[in-house]
C-alpha cells in the first residue's frame, strides 16, 4: 500500500489529505485500528472526540519523527516510535481529561489505547521517517482526518438508527432501531459500511474488489 508514496519528491499537501480521506482511509480501506471504530461510535460526539485525539497524536508524532529522523538509528526505530507515540498519547489523554471530563469518562480507555494503534506507527514507518517536516505534517493530518471522518460517519449512522438523534438533537421520535446502539450493532454497522464501499468500488469498476482482503495488523 505504500508503493504510491515512495517517490523521492513528496506529493503535494492536497493529494496527501485526499489520500488519507479516501484512497487509503485507515478504517474502511486499510482496515486498521478497528477496535475504537466500533467501540466508541455509539454517538457522533464520542466518535468526534476520539477522532480528534487520534488526529492530534498522528500529527504530533509524525512531526516529531520527521524532525528527529536523522537522529534515530534504524535498528531501534520501532521502540523509539512507540515511545514518541506514548508520550503524545499521555499528553492528549491528560488534556482531554482536564478539559472535557464528561466525554472523557466514556472514551478514556480507548484514548489511552491509541498508543497501540497500528495506523499511527505504520504512517511513521512509511512516511514520516522518510520525508521532511512539511509533507509529514500533511500526511499525518490527512490520515488523522480520514480516521476522524470514518468515526464520525459510523457514529452518525449508529446514533441516528439507534437513538434517532444526531449530536444529541432528536430528529426522529422514539428509537427506530435500538439494535444499532448495542455492541452487536457496531459490528453490523461496520460490516454494512465496508460492504457498501466494496459495492461502490465494484460498480465503478476501478478496483479489483480486493479492499475486503484488508490488513490484519495490531
Amino acid at each position, binding site marked *: 500500500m505504500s508503493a504510491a508514496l515512495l517517490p523521492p519528491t513528496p506529493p503535494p499537501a492536497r493529494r496527501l489529505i485526499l489520500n488519507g480521506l479516501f484512497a487509503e482511509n485507515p478504517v474502511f480501506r486499510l482496515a486498521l485500528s478497528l477496535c475504537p471504530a466500533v467501540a466508541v461510535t455509539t454517538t457522533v460526539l464520542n466518535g468526534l472526540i476520539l477522532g480528534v485525539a487520534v488526529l492530534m497524536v498522528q500529527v504530533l508524532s509524525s512531526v516529531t519523527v520527521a524532525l528527529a529522523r536523522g537522529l534515530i538509528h534504524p535498528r531501534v526505530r520501532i521502540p523509539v516510535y512507540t515511545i514518541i507515540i*506514548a508520550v503524545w498519547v499521555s499528553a492528549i*489523554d491528560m488534556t482531554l481529561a482536564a478539559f472535557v471530563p464528561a466525554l472523557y469518562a466514556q472514551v478514556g480507555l480507548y484514548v489511552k489505547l491509541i498508543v497501540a494503534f497500528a495506523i499511527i506507527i505504520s504512517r511513521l514507518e512509511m512516511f514520516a521517517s522518510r520525508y521532511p517536516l512539511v509533507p509529514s505534517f500533511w500526511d499525518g493530518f490527512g490520515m488523522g482526518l480520514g480516521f476522524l471522518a470514518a468515526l464520525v460517519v459510523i457514529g452518525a449512522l449508529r446514533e441516528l438508527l439507534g437513538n434517532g438523534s444526531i449530536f444529541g438533537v432528536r430528529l426522529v421520535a422514539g428509537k427506530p432501531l435500538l439494535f444499532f446502539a448495542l455492541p452487536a450493532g*457496531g459490528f453490523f454497522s461496520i460490516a454494512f459500511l465496508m460492504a457498501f464501499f466494496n459495492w461502490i468500488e465494484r460498480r465503478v469498476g476501478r478496483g479489483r474488489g480486493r479492499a475486503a482482503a484488508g490488513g490484519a495488523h495490531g
Partner: protein
Amino acid sequence: MARILVPTRRGIALAAILALAAAGLSGVLAARGAVPSAGRMSASPPRGAPRPPRILGAWVERSGGESRVVVRLSTPIERVEPANFRFTEAAAPDLPIVVREVRGARGAAANASARLILTVAQPLDPSARYRLDILEPALAGEVRPSAWALFLAVILSSALINNFVFTRYLGLCIFFGVSKKRETALGMGATFAFVMVTTGMLSWLLYEFVMKPLHLRFLQVLVFIGVVAFLVQLLDTVLKKTHGALHEKFGIYLVLITTNCIILAVPLLNAAADAGPLESLALAMGSGAGFALALFLMSCARERVELARVPPALQGLPIAFALAGLFALAFMGFSGLNLFR
C-alpha cells in the same frame, strides 16, 4: 488440540510454573497485608484483654428477594439489639442503613451465636462494599464478598459478560487477522492468555510498588507499553534458546503481540479500577480465557463460511464483521448472569 500440545509439554509446564509463581507472590503479599483489599477484614483487638471478640468476616447474602448481612465473630457478644449495630455503605459512611433485626444463625439465640444474621431495611448489593460498626464492644469491619468469590466473579465477568472482543471491542485487528483457521486461533489464544497474565501481574507490581509511591501514575501508558515490549522480547529470546519447537510454533504470534491493545488494556483497566492482586490476576486470566474462547468460536464459524456462497460485496472482512455481530448478540445473553446470588 492434543497435537499442538504434545511436543511442547515442557514449555507448557514452564509457563504454568511462571504463572503460578506470579500468583503465589501476589497471594503472599496480600496475606501479609502489604496490599489492602485482598483480606476479607481486619479488626484490631485491644491489647491485654482476655480473648476479646473479633469480627472474622462479614458478607451480604441475598435470599428470596431479601438481603441480609452475615457476620462471623470469634466469640458471641452480649448486646445484640439492632441499636448496637451501625451499618453503612463503604462509600457513604455518614448515612446509616437501618438494621431491623439481629438473629443468630440456624435458630440459635443471637447472644449465644458466633454467627449473626442482620436484616436491613433496604436491598443490598452483594458485590459492593459496606462497613459494619458494633458499638459495644467497639468493633469495626468491612463487609464485602470473600476474596475467592470476588476472584471467580471477576474471571467469569471478564471472560463472558464483558468479553474483550464482543462487548469491549478490544483486539479486533488481531481477532479478524488470525481467526481464519482453527489451529492458528488456538495457538494464538493460548499465547495471548499467557502473555496477558504475565504482563498483567508484572505491571500490577510496578504500578503498586513503584508508580503509586512515587506519584508517577500519569506515566501509565508509557510504563505499561514498556513492560509489554520488554516481556514479549524476553519471552521470545528465552523461548528461542530453550524451546526451539515451541518458538517455531508461537514465535510469530509473539511479534504481533507487542503493540496490541488487548494486552495493554489489562494493566490499564487494573490501574483504573485500583485493583488488588487477586482481582488483577483474575482480570488477566478471565480476559485471556475470554479472548481465546472468542478466537476459537470465530475460527470455527469462519471455516464454515469459507464453504458458503457469500455475496461478492460482503466477501472477506464484511462477512466476518457480521459474524462477530451475531456472536456479540449471543454474548449479550450473559449480561443477565447474576454472579452473586
